């Protein structure tokens, strides 16, 4: 029998006065996965995870998190969840080591090791107000991981971190996941979602509009690759040959610049075709569609590559459904 989902949300609705922020959202987070929640500002991502943690009371819907109802059983649930919240702080004059002591429960792992791991050991006597944005984020991450949570919720995890610190944090999240911890990650950083998440759910206007593995989302919503190269005087028949290649949808020539568009598989075919003609272009560039391209397509309400309506596969619906 498969392990039950760590998070199961059905028909979640949440409004602030007349503004509906979450509108009939379904979401499942399988045990042991890193699931990303992505979408534009105001899509309802943070409100969703706040409801999951029991920090906000939903207007409607059912939620089960680690087997508990976050509304009525928050006391049992919260010690099992580690979270790094957006827009929160610690008292200005609280020292780093004191924050570790304050948030440590009987289940806590050694704070010193975490401080070493995240490069804050030298700052253990520093007060919170003196920490840089990146140091604060790392401290929040340490606090989220401190008490060996079964579920970690990370909201804008690497906001304000430099590239090296981001990589360290990503490595820590992967390690955490390898140890069996389930992670729900809210992010605006598509490279972060692609690097960390096995599954992502895309939110728009309080609903999940599609979900699945990042590669599957890219395939469904942004599979067009673009290849460009310069060829002042293309040999006769070359452009016709490129047009006939499997997956090529468009070949354009503007002066010396040739642009080929089509499915990602054209990258290999076009490369193979070009090396048979002399001279080979020396400035060939390839734009491979990313999760960001897929997200932009989804958020702009675009349909799939061939004009078909967007639909979740049955496998996706295990992770997240659209509106009810």
């Amino acid at each position: 029998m498969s392990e039950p989902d760590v998070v199961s949300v059905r028909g979640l609705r949440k409004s602030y006065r007349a503004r509906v922020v979450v509108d009939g959202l379904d979401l499942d987070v399988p045990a042991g996965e890193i699931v990303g929640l992505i979408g534009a500002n105001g899509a309802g991502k943070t409100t969703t995870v706040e409801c999951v943690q029991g920090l906000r009371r939903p207007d409607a819907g059912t939620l089960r998190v680690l087997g508990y109802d976050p509304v009525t059983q928050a006391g049992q649930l919260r010690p099992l969840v580690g979270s790094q919240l957006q827009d929160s702080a610690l008292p200005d004059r609280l020292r780093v080591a004191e924050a570790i002591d304050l948030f440590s429960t009987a289940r806590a792992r050694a704070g010193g090791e975490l401080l070493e791991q995240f490069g804050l050991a030298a700052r253990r006597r520093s007060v919170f107000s003196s920490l840089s944005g990146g140091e604060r984020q790392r401290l929040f991450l340490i606090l989220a991981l401190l008490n060996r949570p079964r579920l970690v919720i990370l909201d804008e995890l690497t906001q304000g971190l430099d590239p090296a610190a981001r990589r360290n944090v990503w490595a820590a999240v992967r390690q955490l996941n390898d140890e069996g911890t389930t992670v729900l990650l809210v992010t605006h950083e598509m490279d972060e979602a692609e690097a960390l998440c096995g599954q992502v759910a895309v939110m728009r206007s309080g609903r999940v509009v599609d979900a699945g593995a990042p590669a599957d989302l890219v395939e469904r919503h942004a599979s067009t690759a673009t290849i460009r190269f310069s060829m002042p005087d293309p040999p006769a028949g070359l452009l016709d040959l490129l047009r006939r290649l499997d997956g090529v949808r468009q070949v354009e020539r503007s002066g010396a610049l040739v642009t080929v568009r089509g499915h990602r598989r054209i990258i290999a075919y076009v490369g193979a075709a070009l090396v048979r003609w002399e001279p080979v272009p020396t400035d060939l560039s390839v734009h491979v569609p990313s999760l960001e391209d897929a997200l932009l397509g989804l958020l702009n309400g675009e349909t799939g590559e061939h004009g078909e309506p967007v639909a979740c596969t049955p496998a996706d619906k295990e992770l997240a459904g659209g509106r009810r």
Partner: protein
Amino acid sequence: MSTAVGRLVRAELALMTRDPLVLTFVFAFPIVTMLIIGGAFGTTPDQAFDGVNPAHWYVASYLTVVIAATGLVMLPVHLASYRERGVLRRFAAAGFPRWSFAIAQLIVGLMTTAVACALLLAVAAPVYGLPAVHDGWRVAVALPLGAIAFVSIGVLLGSLLPSARAAQAVGLLIFFPSFLLGAGGPPPHVMGSVVRQVAGPLPLTLLTNAVRAPWLGLGPATGSLIGVAVLAVAATAVAAYRTAL
């Protein structure tokens, strides 16, 4: 102390020692004003002060000023600041038990009040002398009940007001009239009847009566004591509900 309340109390006390200016209003204001007003009215027993030494009248009154300053000014600003900046959300998300923060604030508020009261008496003793306590039990009941009531009111205000600046404005707006009418201002006998009627039911007036009258042998002030007790229970219940994490 490894319980959540214990950890919160320890952290709050450490933070307090690191930012002593925060305590200035609670510690210095009552002492300075007591010295000024006690000196202004002298030490000769006066009928306006129910026949007692005015300086002693104010020494017995100013303990409640300490309590009110803690509850109406210090705590609301502190809590509203925490809420405004997301500190309370972080405590809640970290799994601190539902009532732990309210209880911790109550304990810290009571400890602050106790220290400030001791300091006030330590300053008053060599200057005016400490008046004899006629009915120690009633004073001993009224002071902690009043402290609980005002600390709870402070916690409640901090949970209701939208920002630290709003909490400061509202706290001072409540504190100063209460202070002038109910504890540190002129004695009730010299007030006009309307002002006396307005002052009578104020929480700080009730508390001051409940402490001062049995202390100076001016009567049991049972009605005031009951009023303070009711206020303590009600304010604690509402504050705990409002600040549940």
